[in-house]
């Protein structure tokens, strides 16, 4: 990674939520650096603070401690360099696809970049679906539309929060291939959250493993599988080995289990 500029720095990020029943310690001194154009996955058990981390990167909420830098500048609110893809496509049901995708332009009071949008729709196989409403589309199509929405404003960083968690296995596999292709073509910096280890191994350059709440960084794995990866790769011994090793590393975190 030394040959590439650092795009994203997370430095000792901590986050508490104040709730009626007391403080929830969601994130504990989490640090990572992501190089420009790198694809990193963050995995960890449900409720460990993954979304909390991602929302902080997107500037949707502040940290209780530590800081996050994008291109060397601290994040203190939503940033035009960053776009998010949410769990369950998160399309607005009262808008058709075209108007859903134009939402970011509308918010920024810019004319929509029609050529770019059409190109992206074509790329993900949604040409001609602009007038459809979300409810008329399958979960996979909805999620592809939400990826187009995120990419339409040409961000340099894509934050994806368990984007394919709600999809069936086949669609999920398709989406994994698609997102890798798009990443290879566009060289965006991607931070991708998942709780599927094989998905993380398939997609990532590096995998950051988090502990149960409060979310702490426990291990980092370099995934040296060659690119482009295809479905074939998932059957290779090295892939299976990596998955097993990561699984072991999570199971060998007795702190969560004993508590």
């Amino acid at each position, binding site marked *: 990674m030394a040959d590439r500029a650092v795009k994203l720095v997370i430095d000792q990020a901590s986050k508490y939520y104040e709730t009626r029943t007391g403080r929830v310690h969601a994130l504990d001194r989490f640090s990572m650096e992501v190089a420009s154009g790198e694809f990193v996955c963050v995995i960890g058990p449900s409720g460990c603070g993954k979304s909390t981390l991602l*929302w902080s990167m*997107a*500037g*949707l909420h502040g940290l209780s401690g530590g800081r996050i830098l994008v291109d060397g500048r601290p994040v203190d609110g*939503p940033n*035009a360099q*960053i*776009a*998010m893809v*949410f*769990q*369950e*496509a*998160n*399309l*607005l*049901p*009262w808008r058709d696809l075209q108007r859903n995708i134009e*939402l*970011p332009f*509308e*918010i*920024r009071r810019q004319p929509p970049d029609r050529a770019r949008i059409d190109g992206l729709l074509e790329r993900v196989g949604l040409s001609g679906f602009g007038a459809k*409403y*979300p*409810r008329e*589309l*399958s*979960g996979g199509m*909805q999620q592809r539309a939400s990826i187009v929405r995120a990419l339409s*404003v040409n961000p340099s960083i894509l934050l994806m929060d368990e984007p394919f968690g*709600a999809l069936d296995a086949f669609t999920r596999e398709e989406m994994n291939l698609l997102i890798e292709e798009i990443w290879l073509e566009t060289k965006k910096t991607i931070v991708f959250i998942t709780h599927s280890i094989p998905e993380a191994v398939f997609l990532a350059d590096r995998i950051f493993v988090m502990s149960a709440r409060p979310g702490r960084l426990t291990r980092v794995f370099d995934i040296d599988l060659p690119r482009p990866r295809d479905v074939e790769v998932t059957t290779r011994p090295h892939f299976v080995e990596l998955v097993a090793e990561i699984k072991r590393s999570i199971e060998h975190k007795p702190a969560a289990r004993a508590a």
Partner: protein
Amino acid sequence: MASVDRELKDTIPTFGKGGDPAQTVDISNWSGLASELSLVKTGAEWAAILLVAVLIIGGGELLLRLYEVPTYIMPTPSQIVGALIKDFPAIAPHVGHTLVELLTGFAIGATIGFVLAAIITQFPFAEKIIAPYVLLLVTTPMLALVPLLILKLGFGYAPRIIAVALASGPMVMINSATGFRRVDLAKIALARSFGASTLQIFLKIRIPMAMPMVIVGLMVGSIFGLLTAVGAEMVGGSFGLGNRLTYYSSLIQMPQFFACILILAMIGISIYVLFYWLGKRWAGWEA
């Protein structure tokens, strides 16, 4: 067949976190009231409804004539329609008065109700304080205030318009508030992540999201407004359809009396159809 499908659909919760948004189907189920019209779908069903109407009207005509029921007890349908046509020039101005009261009062009440709902739901504490008073306004028949209003404001439009506003406003408000309370944090976060301001989030996320319930509130509120307008006209004053009802019944002119009721029914149905249509347009996205 169709009714079985509908029942099945009603037992499957279409909202809630785990729900698959792709599964939502029919576009007409956005409120119990609003779905009544959608029960009628096919041409055959419309034909059957017409047939029933013909049977009721024709049968009524026949029976009333057969038993020679005096007009002052119950006029025949043909007498009612006859009176409607013959006396329409005399009744028409009163229709106008009632509509003016209804539209003005409803416009005022609905606007205040909608704005208050939008504001108050942003402040949960204030909402808690105000809620019982709004409930009081919703449940107390505003007609009860009309004699007092007339005492203060005379026999003109003013007391009636105020009564209509008081009847429809709270109805619009509690339904709209229910709509505004349905916050979907993920959608707000989405808009925020693209840099949306609070106002933009309000206009582009919160209002469309509240729309189905707002329209239900407008529909119920306007029908309450019509009831109140007519009731207020019956209490005092010398114009409006409600006043004509008391007038014609005191003169035992029953065909004209029923002609006024027919007009009221048509106004009510028009309101319903208008909001049904608006609902399909603005809230059709919600199954």
